[in-house]
């Protein structure tokens, strides 16, 4: 393929990759954080201990995480159609990406919250905080650095998954890499797209870690 053909393809690929990845991450977090928080607070010794909810939610999360992505994608087609009005293209990729990533993120969030110092939660309880206030004012802010690192990990994972966009005719660098590099044996295009992917990941990673470190007030800036 010639350069003047390749360039627009790659530019389009970058745009779509960013579009899918960022939107999917945002929506996954909108869904994943509440689920993760509920998993944490309803767990044993949680501030709102509730065995049944914890178990049911846990199973739902595991369910969504066990289904192979391609099967999930097909299974929720009607849902995808209802949400974004189409079953092809990048928008149609976002829906299954979110459904697949949200439970993963829920588990990451749950893990971050588990690291919040029990003494601090106790102090908040002693002041008469409600579970909601504890979530909002203690758990999430105190776990912020860890949540941010989790987000950095998640966004890269989602970016990886977005390569499967090709399945639904979506685009993005991942799909280009697979379609040209894997199916068409055009290694040079594959190299370029992979290099672009690495750069994007590197940028996300740097930003994520910087933010996490910068907002982490436990770190002594000496």
């Amino acid at each position, binding site marked *: 393929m010639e350069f003047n053909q390749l360039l627009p393809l790659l530019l389009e690929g970058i745009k779509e990759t960013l579009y899918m990845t960022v939107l999917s991450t945002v929506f996954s977090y909108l869904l994943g954080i509440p689920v993760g928080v509920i998993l944490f607070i309803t767990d044993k010794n949680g501030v709102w201990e509730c065995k049944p909810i914890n178990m049911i939610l846990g199973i739902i999360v595991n369910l969504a995480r066990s289904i192979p992505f391609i099967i999930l994608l097909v299974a929720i087609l009607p849902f995808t159609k209802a949400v974004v009005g*189409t079953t092809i293209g990048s928008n149609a990729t976002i829906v299954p990406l979110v459904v697949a990533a949200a439970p993963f993120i829920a588990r990451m969030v749950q893990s971050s919250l588990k690291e919040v110092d029990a003494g601090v939660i106790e102090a908040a309880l002693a002041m008469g905080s409600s579970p909601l206030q504890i979530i909002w004012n203690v758990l999430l802010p105190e776990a912020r650095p860890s949540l941010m690192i989790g987000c950095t990990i998640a966004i890269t994972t989602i970016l990886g998954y977005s390569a499967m966009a090709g399945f639904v005719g979506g685009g993005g660098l991942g799909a280009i890499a697979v379609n040209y590099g894997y*199916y068409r044996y055009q290694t040079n295009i594959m190299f370029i797209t992979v290099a672009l992917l690495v750069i994007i990941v590197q940028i996300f990673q740097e930003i994520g870690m910087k933010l996490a470190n910068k907002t982490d007030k436990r770190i002594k800036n000496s």
Partner: protein
Amino acid sequence: GCSKAEDKESDDKTIVVGAGITPHAEILEQVKDVLAQEGYTLEIVEYNDYVLPNTALNDGELDANYFQHQPYLDDFNQENKTNMVSAASIHFEPFGIYAGKTSSISDLAEGAKVAIPNDTSNEARALLLLEAQGLITLKKDAGLTATVLDIEENPLNLEIEEIEAAQIARALSDVDIACINGNYAIQGGLSVSDALAVESADSLAASTYANILAVNAGHENDEKIQALVKALQSEEVRKFIQDNYDGAVVPVF
């Protein structure tokens, strides 16, 4: 997003076609300019999957798709209670048996490893080709959806490995022989002439497994579909196919 899809459907000048990546999308690329001169915009949606292009066509997201053969479409229609039909046959990809560790079919030893594709249509086709070579026999009713579970007799106790179609050429050195789609064979550095056995262009397979342009029933005579068919079945396309695919893709018009 909602309105966009409906625009596409109602728009008489835009043709949205779902296509397999190679060679389908590449062949479609060749007719973009011709169609443009006639006032049509051709939008190609690439799929590396065999299910979603059909569901999308059935949903009206696509005007047509081009990736499958008739038996697969029939099977899909039956399983999913859909009603899609062929608007035209475009090309045929001869399937071949290629040598890996063992250099001829007659040399195959007891327990030899045979790689075949793992998707429905290609797997069945590969098994049928093996049966035609007298290596195995399949159950009577297995037909075009045969899987390894349908093997009735396997005198050499061949060890059948199901692998992604595009991957087989890369794994050739690990098996004794492999059944490979023509286009993947070529892209993997093989040549159709090296094949130990091949479906010939005038065989029954050629007509059965010709790749078709599928549309929803009732649309086969739409103006834009007709324009697309005309463009695809042109001499330019025939020449493109013959020049570029080295016998791995054969025009059937």
